[in-house]
């Protein structure tokens, strides 16, 4: 079993519990082990970077050093954690002075970073390491006739890293096709969900969530698939409030891509955290009740 140093991040212990459950299950079905990093700490989210950049890098560096000790790729299912880890790792490589300063602090926990460390988002592991052909081979319950709106959000793609397509990526659509569903084309797929503005400027965040839901609904999506706990929470948990503020009646299921992947791989819905949602997924029963083709 190929192993990864898995960094769940704080949301996956609470609001995004089902993302954690479904990630582990889907990975196992495909022969991957997500080995949780021992005693990991918060990555600083965005708020820590509002206060002190150097301290925020130090928090992230501790998690990177813990992964380096295991000699495994660092994998984060949350786009925010991923972005923080990716760029901290990058800065530590580019700036030996910064690395020296942070390694001095890491000594207090008997840790050290030499780097570079491979920092990956969970979806990259499925797309790049497993691959679409291999995933297809393992699909026992194809999500036939399910119209899925792939929602990339922001921080997986941006800031720009190498040569990735930041305006019109396709790998999420390809993954959704590999599990038998119909990916929906819609213009908002790389727009912002409002992230932590849902707390600090709710009016602005709800406006962004409303536009996203409306776009997916106009394209007759059955479900929105997410790759980040914050995107999921904003689109799902606050959907009712959007309906109140905008006089809409959205009942758009929002699921983590790992839940859809897990379903297609034949995992029982309860083990993927389905049922913990606020927007009912009953409209998708036709998929869940599909007998598995063998």
């Amino acid at each position, binding site marked *: 079993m190929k192993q990864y140093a898995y960094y769940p991040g*704080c*949301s996956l*212990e*609470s*609001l*995004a*519990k*089902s993302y954690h459950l479904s990630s582990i299950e889907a990975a196992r079905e495909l022969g991957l082990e997500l080995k949780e990093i021992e*005693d*990991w*700490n*918060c990555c*600083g*989210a965005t*708020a*820590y*970077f*509002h*206060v*002190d*950049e*150097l*301290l925020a890098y*130090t*928090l992230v560096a*501790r998690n990177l050093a813990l992964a380096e000790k295991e000699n495994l790729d660092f994998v984060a299912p949350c786009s925010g954690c991923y972005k923080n880890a990716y760029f901290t790792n990058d800065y530590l490589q580019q*700036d030996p002075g910064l690395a020296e300063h*942070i390694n*001095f*602090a*890491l*000594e*207090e*926990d*008997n840790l050290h970073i030499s780097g570079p460390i491979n920092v990956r988002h969970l979806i990259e592991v499925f797309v790049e390491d497993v691959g679409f052909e291999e995933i297809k081979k393992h699909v026992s319950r194809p999500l036939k006739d399910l119209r899925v709106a792939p929602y990339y959000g*922001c*921080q997986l793609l*941006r*800031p*720009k890293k190498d040569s990735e397509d*930041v*305006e019109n990526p396709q790998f999420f659509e390809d993954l959704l096709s590999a599990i038998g569903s119909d990916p929906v084309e819609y213009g908002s797929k790389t*727009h*912002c969900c*409002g*992230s*932590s*503005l849902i*707390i*600090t*400027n*709710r009016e*602005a*965040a709800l*406006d*962004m969530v409303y536009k996203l839901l409306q776009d997916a609904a106009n394209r007759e999506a059955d479900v929105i698939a997410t790759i980040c706990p914050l995107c999921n929470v904003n689109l799902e*948990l606050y959907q009712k409030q959007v309906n109140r503020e905008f006089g809409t009646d959205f009942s758009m299921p929002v699921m983590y891509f790992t839940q859809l992947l897990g379903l297609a791989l034949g995992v029982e819905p309860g083990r993927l955290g389905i049922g*913990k*949602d*606020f927007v009912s997924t009953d409209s998708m029963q036709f998929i869940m009740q599909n007998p598995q083709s063998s």
Partner: protein
Amino acid sequence: MAAKLTFSKEIANLLYAMHGNPIKDCIQCGTCSGTCPAVEFMDHSPRELIAMIGANLKDEVLHSNTYWSCASCYYCNVRCPAGIDIADLMYALKRYSMWKDQYKKDLIGPKFSESFVKMIMRTGRSFEPVLAPSYIFKYGTRGIIQEAQTASALVLKGRLPLLPKKIKRLENLKRMVRRIIPIGEPS
């Protein structure tokens, strides 16, 4: 004697480590403002704010809600034709305004960020209920009731533990932080 530092130089210095180009490269094209999903909730668009920094309008910049309305989506960054790291400029302005303690007092962002940092220093991980006092009272009675209802529904769904988790080596983490910023003993 050193010349007095202008506000625009001071902000430029804050950005010295940035990978993007300095804000003096801004051509005022407005691509950032046209791209920004939060622009209609800002009192000055990102383009205007950059012009205001260039014009040394320090008080106006410090009392703007623009950078506190930035969601860190980085769309402006990838589209800026001058290659300016605009989202990181917004971060730098957040830090500057908190450091100077000069921000609009009705904003939730600064208090929220401050309580977030304190929380991490106490437990090493994030736990949403600990943060609630930093913003909930700004939501009004109806808002507070809604938040309480959401929280209890989350608990019932098994999506909100009742107690925060503490990391095991919290004392080491605290000592690490003191090596970065020697602030003396924590109170």
